[in-house]
Structure formats: C-alpha cells, structure tokens
C-alpha cells in the first residue's frame, strides 16, 4: 500500500466465515474493512461508510441478490462511483458468463472473481480495480 490514506472496502457475502476471513486478510493488508451479510445490510453500510470498493457475492438469499445490490448502488448518486467486484460461485448458477459482462450496464461491475479464490489473486484484482486499470484478459 503506497496510498497516503487507507482505502475502505465493503465485503458483502452471506457466508459469515468467508466474510470474517476476508476481513482479517484485508485488514492485514492495510485496508479498512466493513462487512454485511445481505443486500439490505450492504446498502446501509455503503450509505453510512461510503467505501472505495465493494466486494459483492452474487448468490445470497436468492440467485441474483449481488447484482441487485450493485444496480441499487449505481442508481444512488452518492454511491455510484464506488468500485464493484463481483464475487461468485460457478457461472452456471446464474446462467451468465461473467467475464464477458465487464462493462455491461445491466450488471455494473469493475471486476469479477470466481470462488474459491486465492487471496493474493483477490488482492491483485482489488489493487487493479482501485488503480482504475482496465482488465487484461
């Protein structure tokens, strides 16, 4: 981390263990981390904490909950510039090919990470997105 100020990351996933381990890891990497277990908590956290980046699980209580949260955030003028990384299980679960959807206004996301993920891969993706670099396929 060579940034002067700490970047704030919001992690939204319905698996508490995953959320807590990501929180421990990201904090260790020098980020401020806030967490939520569903899209409502996620929206509240986003509004009060105004994070720089949000990592959203796609399938939570229902299949596309993460997409809905991402869309809601983009609609909110204060939240629309928050970077979003979609965190997901298998493509088949949602019937979409995510990588092809970067830049798709229907599903606003700046990056996609497939579960399970090695944390250094996630970290690289976070740094790439925060630096505003395009995805190199």
């Amino acid at each position, binding site marked *: 981390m060579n940034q002067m100020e700490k970047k704030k990351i919001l992690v939204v996933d319905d698996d*508490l*263990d995953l959320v*807590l*381990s*990501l929180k*421990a*890891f990201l904090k260790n990497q020098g980020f401020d981390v806030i967490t939520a277990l569903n899209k409502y908590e996620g929206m509240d956290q986003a509004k009060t904490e105004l994070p720089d980046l949000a990592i959203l699980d796609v399938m939570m209580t229902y299949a596309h909950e993460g997409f809905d949260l991402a869309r809601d955030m983009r609609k909110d003028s204060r939240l629309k510039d928050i970077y979003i990384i979609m965190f997901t299980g298998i493509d088949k*679960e949602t019937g979409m090919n995510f990588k092809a959807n970067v830049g798709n206004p229907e599903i606003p996301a700046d990056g996609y990470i497939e579960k399970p*993920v*090695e944390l250094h891969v996630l970290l690289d993706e976070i740094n790439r997105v925060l630096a505003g670099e395009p995805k190199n396929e």
Partner: protein
Amino acid sequence: MNDLLKDSIFITRTNWLILHRWITIAIVAVTTLIGGQVFKLDINEFGLYLCSLALIVINLTSIYLKKLIIVQNESSVYKELKMLLIFQITGDLLILTIMIHCSGGIENPLFAFYVFHLVNASLFLSVIETYLLTILVIIFFSALAFLEYAGIIPHYSLRYGNFFNISYYSNLYSVNLIVGVFTLTMLMLSYLSTTIGKRLRDQEKSLRDAINKLNEKDRIKNEYVIEVTHEVKGHLTAVLSCLDVVINTGDTIDKTEKQYLLSRAYHRAKHLSDFVKSLLKLTRIRMDQKLEMDWFPIKDVLNEIINSQRSNAQDKSIKLILNDHLVLNLLYGNKLMIEEAINNLINNAIKYTPPKGEVTLTCTTENNFIALVIADSGIGIPADDVPRIFDEFYRASNVVKDVETGTGMGLSIVKQIVERHQGEISVESKLGEGTKFIMKFPYKN
C-alpha cells in the same frame, strides 16, 4: 402432440407436396404432348395443359403462403399450415378429376391416383377429416362419371385404333360398377390408412413421451449436480479462505484471530464431511435394488431409541415422552433404516424445540400399518416451506443459518427410507407452536 411438433410435421408435408407437384406437372405436360402428338389420342390436350398450369399456380401460391405463414413467427402456426395443406389437397383432387375427364373419364385407370392423395392426407388429418376428404373424392369421381354418361359434359376418349376401343362411359351398368367399386375401395382405403396412421401416431407419441421423461430426468440430475457442487463449493471456499489467511499472513495477524479462523476452517470441513456422508447414504438407499427386510421387535427398538436420546433431550431440559399403543411387537422392514428415520426425526425435534419444551413419540396400530408420530413444541415450519422440506438441501427459512449441524439432507433420507418400505410420511406444522411428523409403515409388503 405439441404445437411445435405439429408445425414441423405440416411444414414437411407441405414441402413434400410442393416437390411432388412439380414432378407431376412435368409428367402431365410430357405425357399430354406424347399422347396428343405422337399417338394422336382423342384427348383434350388444351384442358390437360391448363391443368398443368393450374398445378403451377397452386404450387406458387403454396410457396408464397407458406413463407407468409412461417414469417408470422408467432408461437405456433400449425393451424394456418393445416389450412394450406387442405387447400392444396382439395385443389389437387379437383385438378386430378379434370385431368381424368380430359383423358378418357372412367375409362382411364388414372383414377387409381386418388389413392395417393388420400394416403398422404391421412398422415396428418384427423380420422373425421380424412373421411370427409374421401367423400369429396367419391363425389368428384361419381359426378364425373354420371355427367359424362348423361352427356352433360363431353367425353374425351382414350381410344387408340383397334388396341383400345371401348366406351364404358355410356353404359349405365359399367358406370355403376366402376363407381360402386371405386367408392368401396376409397372407403376401405380410408379405414385402413386412418387406422394404421393412428397406430403410428400413438406409437410416436409414446416414444416422444418417453424421450421427454428421460430429458426431464436428465435435467433434474444436472440441477442436482449443480446444487451439490454449490453446497460443496460454499464450504470449500470458507475453509480455503480461512486457511489462506492463517498461512499467508505469517505473524502479522493476531493469535486469537488466527485460532478462530483455524477453528472455523475445521468446523466447515467437518460440516462438508457430514454433508458428503449424508449424500452417499441417500444415494445408497436410493440405489439399493433390494432392501434387506426382516421381522424385528419394533417396541424394543422404540424403547432403545428413547433411552439413547434421553441425555440429548435433558441437555436442553426437553421432556421426551414415549406413548406406546402398539398391539404387536413386530414390524417387517429394515431395522437399521427405520431406526435411522426415527432418530433423525427425534434429533430434529429436539434441535428445533426451545428449552423446557416437549417431544413425543406416539405409536399406534392402524388397519394394515403402524403409525409413528413424532411431535414437538418447537419453532414450527413456515407454511410456504412445508411442501419443500423433504427436498434435498432444502432448509426452512426460519432455521438459523449458523446452526452448524444441519446438512439439509436429514428429511430427504427419512422420506427415502419410508418410501423404500412402501410407507407414507406427512407433516403438520404451526409456526411457533410445533411440528408433527407422521410415518406409516405397512405390516408386510
């Protein structure tokens, strides 16, 4: 038969007719030319050429209408396609009649060609429609024969020197004979072709149903695999993530946090292992061709279960009661499996009943079966969830997600066990008041 299938059948028939009509047009034109110019027959050449032209018009119209209908692109167009087919066949029959008229009337054996049209029509028309078409054929042909006989329309002869020099058309006896046999032949033909056609269609339908059933099973299986994968992947992701942090952060992370993450990884791995075990068990119960069944003392089994579950219930200060009203002590079945089913339900009842609650196991003898009822004073199941609670991986929405012991497979296993015994299982539940599972096992299958 579904609509899309009908669409494809009718398109195939339309194409078939159009192709064969082109061939017919060519043959009619050539034979007319040869018959008229080479053999100098007394046929109505002009009329026959007009018939060829009419067939060309029918073909072009059909091609145009077919395109128009298909381009409509609505959900299904088989009705329009069928109308088009009926239009074509009626036109063909009329032109065939005129062609017969122009080339010798009932003296021309060409009238046998009506057979082709009827057989073709019976492939896609209903029985009644085929018979209606048959009647139309009979009317066309009889009208031709009697109008020529009565001299209302002219007769063109097929006479060829002394080789063929007959005139059936003017003899009432031969006209009646030919028309009569023709009528009978056409009716018999319709009867046969509709019967065979129906049998073919029935066979096709049953094959198609079988294919659909197999496809549906395949789809369910694929969904099942996806659900299993999702479940496994969830646990694996958590395990890997927790361990990843511990391994890759070295000493820069708090020791208690590290310890916590390790214990979470262990729990999730344990949960995953329970899940896989249940999955294997369920699959095995399902796949076992024949269960090992025998008479066993059910009363003793119930007492054992209650005794072994007692401490489990006492830990939560839950009262565990056995109401045994059984007349006989014997039940026919697989003892281990029935034990497992009862234990599963009692475990669930204890798990979802708050402290100081009550769990009751009641056994009664009914006509041909033994009823085992496991009732609790627990949290109950929301009405929306009740129909799905026996589905694999399904957990009611009011179950706290971090209750670690559930695999979402317990009730599926119970249901499989009951069904393998030709028994029945049902559930009654009131949210906040309690749940009652009723299992019925027949005495002997």
